[in-house]
């Protein structure tokens, strides 16, 4: 344990051991446990979006089925494979760091960065097509693309004012406008799941809000991952991680794999809706 590589800590016998730890193993365990708990917070951070997705899909399946036609499944699939490759190179980089092979580590980290950049590039293309067709979120949703254009541009809304008369007609018993019965389970059990409804359902902008928030936040996490990997690359090129001390690389690898797992779930949920 007494290699003389320039330690980042004060120069006592183990270069990486912080003063308040008993031994390196305790320090490595602490760092890893800390990382896993941080991954737990990331998971819960995204759980908010998965919850919004589940709620709107369970209650308005027609929107999701209708809007799915505007998402390019091939690009989505390609992106998934790109991220899986970046996961491979990252895991391989961790292995190289553990074995102290600094050159392989540098190459693999660069490869991971390249894959991540490709992922963002493909994402950029997708966003561009949506921008052109006006398939944006919330109040910016004004589709001018062949699929949605002719079937009622802005969703026809039931102005609340008119509803009172119908609602107030207690005497002749006309019921309040029938509500869209949301199915109980997650899957649209009784909704017309298969043929796309001719006219666009109302509030389609909700799907695109969720799509952009989910993929946007995931994109931000990919960018953050790229920054941290670049920082690792710089430290590698400056000569660290030669002696098998791999905790930072290991932790960044854990973070990167979590970002990949989140995309693994995002891909079927957003792109493959039946």
């Amino acid at each position: 344990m007494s290699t003389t590589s320039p330690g980042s800590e004060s120069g006592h016998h183990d270069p990486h051991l912080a003063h308040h730890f008993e031994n390196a193993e305790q320090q490595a365990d602490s760092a890893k446990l800390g990382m896993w708990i941080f991954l737990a917070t990331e998971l819960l951070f995204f759980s908010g979006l998965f919850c919004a997705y589940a709620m709107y899909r369970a209650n308005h399946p027609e929107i999701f089925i209708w809007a799915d036609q505007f998402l390019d499944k091939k690009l989505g699939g390609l992106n998934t494979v790109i991220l899986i490759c970046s996961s491979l190179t990252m895991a391989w980089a961790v292995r190289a760091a553990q074995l102290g092979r600094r050159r392989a580590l540098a190459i693999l980290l660069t490869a991971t960065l390249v894959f991540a950049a490709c992922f963002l590039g493909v994402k950029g293309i997708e966003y561009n097509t949506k921008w052109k067709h006006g398939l944006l979120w919330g109040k910016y949703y004004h589709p001018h693309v062949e699929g949605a254009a002719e079937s009622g541009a802005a969703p026809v809304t039931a102005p609340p004012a008119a509803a009172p008369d119908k609602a107030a007609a207690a005497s002749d018993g006309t019921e309040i406008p029938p509500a869209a019965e949301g199915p109980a389970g997650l899957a649209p059990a009784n909704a017309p799941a298969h043929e796309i409804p001719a006219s666009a359902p109302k509030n389609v902008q909700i799907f695109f809000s969720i799509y952009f928030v989910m993929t946007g936040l995931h994109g931000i996490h990919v960018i953050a991952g790229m920054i941290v990997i670049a920082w690792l690359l710089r430290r590698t090129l400056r000569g660290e991680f030669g002696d098998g001390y791999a905790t930072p690389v290991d932790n960044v690898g854990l973070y990167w794999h979590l970002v990949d797992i989140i995309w693994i779930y995002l891909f079927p949920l957003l792109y493959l809706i039946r």
Partner: protein
Amino acid sequence: MAEAHQTTGVHVVPLKVLVAVWAGLVFLTWLTFAASRINLGSLNLWVAMGIATAKGSLVLLYFMHLRWDKRFYALVFVGTLLFVMLFVGGVLIDTTHYQSQMIPGYAPGMHGQ
């Protein structure tokens, strides 16, 4: 190949395993893509989720080497999943049961478009 030593207690994942897992993931991606073309009605969602969970566990067990690490890290991850499911389940239980009060398609804000 064997000149560098490795810090004690850290498991180095053999390269063969890494590449095998990678291949498995790519195959499962193709599988979920293919499965989505078959019309299984409401089952489609659960099949897609099943395949995604399989892929996720592959990444967790091998790439994040949960298989060889302390059990506690796996416990932390699974425990978090429980809380995520509790959150999503709780919200779904409520929201699916009050849909009957919603005014269908109500979005006066969209008049401007």
